[in-house]
């Protein structure tokens, strides 16, 4: 009599999904990496030093994992949350007080703070091991952009609860855009864009207006930041992450002594 697990693994359904027997011997341990979509991000084999935690600190991996946590909890939060002046704060209140699994908001917020920290620590490790040196220069640049996107993701998300903490933090943060050289209405050189005595750069047309969608942090801003937070920046970050991971492989794997 074959055991139940043998019957399952012998079935046509199982075999159509997993092409190889269990990875218990060398041949199948190689095959599992090559034939599994999620695992094929990895090489088949790797230098011992490349998986030593005391070398990598695992911070890049943790950052990626936190990004996945943010995606899952974020999607669940989107089922509840409505980005309007009428509902935004009420929905967050409900998440705190009545909604079951409202703890998703805590997971999302602490995961976001954690991601900012781990992405810095990842950069710190990559610097300390000189891993940005040739041939990995460009991947460092991609990483710098990902670092920026992580901060922007966190920043745009900060507004969504629509409480005092949120709008004033965003107000303070975005006020600086008023002073953008030439393109901000309080910035140096804004007068240069004056046509027939009429200034082209006003508080209703400058860089800050473009960021907020209004002259102050209001409903347009909430909508704008919601779309940036849930769609635009995650998409951009996903593309760059794909490049970042792919380039690790193409540039010779995790860095090590030449």
């Amino acid at each position, binding site marked *: 009599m074959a055991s139940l697990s043998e019957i399952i693994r012998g079935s046509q359904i199982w075999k159509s999904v997993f092409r190889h027997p269990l990875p218990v011997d*060398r041949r199948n*341990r190689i095959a599992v*990496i090559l034939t599994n979509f999620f*695992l094929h991000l*990895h*090489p088949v*084999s*790797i230098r*011992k*030093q490349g*998986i030593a*935690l*005391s070398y990598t*600190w*695992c911070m890049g991996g943790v950052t990626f*994992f*936190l990004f996945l*946590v943010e995606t899952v909890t974020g999607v669940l939060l989107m089922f509840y949350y409505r980005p309007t002046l009428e509902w935004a704060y009420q929905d*967050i209140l409900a998440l*705190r007080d009545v909604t079951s699994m409202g703890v998703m908001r*805590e*997971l999302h917020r*602490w995961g976001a*703070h954690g991601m900012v920290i781990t992405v810095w*620590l990842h950069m*710190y490790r990559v*610097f*300390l*091991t*000189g*891993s*940005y*040196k*040739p041939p990995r*220069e460009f991947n*460092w*640049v991609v990483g*710098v952009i990902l670092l920026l996107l992580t901060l922007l993701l*966190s920043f745009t998300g900060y507004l969504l609860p*629509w*409480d*005092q*903490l949120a*709008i*004033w*933090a965003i*107000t*303070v*943060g975005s*006020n*600086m*855009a008023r*002073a*953008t*050289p030439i393109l901000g209405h309080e*910035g*140096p*050189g804004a007068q240069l864009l004056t046509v027939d005595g009429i200034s082209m750069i006003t508080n209703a047309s400058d860089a800050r207006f473009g960021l907020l969608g209004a002259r102050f942090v*209001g409903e347009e801003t909430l909508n704008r930041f919601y779309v940036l937070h849930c769609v635009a920046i995650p998409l951009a970050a996903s593309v760059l992450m794909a490049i970042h991971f792919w380039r690790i492989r193409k540039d010779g794997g995790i860095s*090590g002594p030449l």
Partner: protein
Amino acid sequence: MHGHNEAEFLKEVAGFLGVYYLALAAMNMTAALYVWKSGKALRIVKLGGTAATTAHLWLLLGLVFLLMAPLGFSGDAATMRLVSVPESFREIINVAMGPMVYTVGSVVGLVVLFVLRRFFVKPTVAWIGLNASLLLMGLSMTDPDFADIVRKADNVPIVGLIFMLGFFTWLGAYRAIENDDRAKRGLPPVEAEQREKVLVWPDLVYIELICMVFLTAFLLVWAIVLKAPLEEPASAVKTPNPSKAPWYFLGLQEMLVYYDPWMAGVVLPSLIIVGLAAIPYLDFNKKGNGYYTIDERKFAYVMFQFGFLLLWVTLIVMGTFLRGPNWNFFGPYETWDPHKVEALNNVDLSEFFWIRWLHMPRPKAPDGAGILRTLAMIVYRESPGIVLLVGYLAIVPHALVLGSRFFRDLFARMGFLRYMVLANLLLMMMLLPIKMICRWGFNLKYFVAIPEYMLNF
């Protein structure tokens, strides 16, 4: 503590402090067990026939923390005083702390850590340092003003960040020194000894799986224990004091004290991003690729630590914990009093130059003068600052080449353009602490002040 009396406050922190000291006790006893079992215990003194080792020391420390735990749990004012930082010490810290002391102190601290790094990376020394900082933090938690800020939900991750950065800086330095010592003996770095390849399944995928399980558990506990903050509904008319940006931008907000928004909020952040991205194209040193080392790339190491640990992280810590209402500076044990007045009369360099030193009014174009004449007079008025800045950014790099072999070598290997980009990025970075010190020391406001065109620097 606003709206709480002391007894209520102490009850609130008591539960936390008890668990905190229990955790410290467990941490030290585990360390004692580890050094004893692994045979890594170091002998401290010899007493008669037996030697006291670090294993005994950590065990003793663990027992002390174990004794402190019930005191922490008590929540009673008289008992809690035994596990508090003495009032007099808190007073001294509050009075002595200021932005100047904090920043210069951070610089001096980091320089000492760097110069004596071989001493500080010793595991025994580092462990004592960790215990001391954790103890100081525990003893400070009974101070309502300190606890108020540290316990703010959004600030908790920053406390974590400080300890993690401490740990990873230690780890990086420890491994670097190990490699540097090996290099002196003609050995390759430790990393080179592990060239042997292993299969990703199971060696790596299992590490990943275990990491994910631990992280998920950690996040869940964190999320259940600590509630996400939610304040009153947004109101465009009620401005909170202080109004702070999210914590990771507080270094930029701190720069607003010294620079106009166009610099602090737009130009300098852009330079930070561009400068970071430029690192691989400016650092031509081929050594130190793929292993920890300090000696083989000292200049790069010091510059990065200066920018990251000092200018980025300590400014965030200052902006979070030490900047209160009206962005005034408050000591760590000081009440955030919105009425604290700091009389400051900051003066532009042109005023220093023309009025205070030359005793004459600042040059000014006569009313109705043409635009070119007005512009010329503005430039003339601000010439001291302009000369200083141009000199700083254009002449200092050349002076360095002439005066120092190290920079001459850099210049020769990098070429004019690359060298000037590097030098100017670093000089712009250095300008921040220079401006901070000019502000605190001499109340200097702007080097170049052209309010006519909103161009202040």
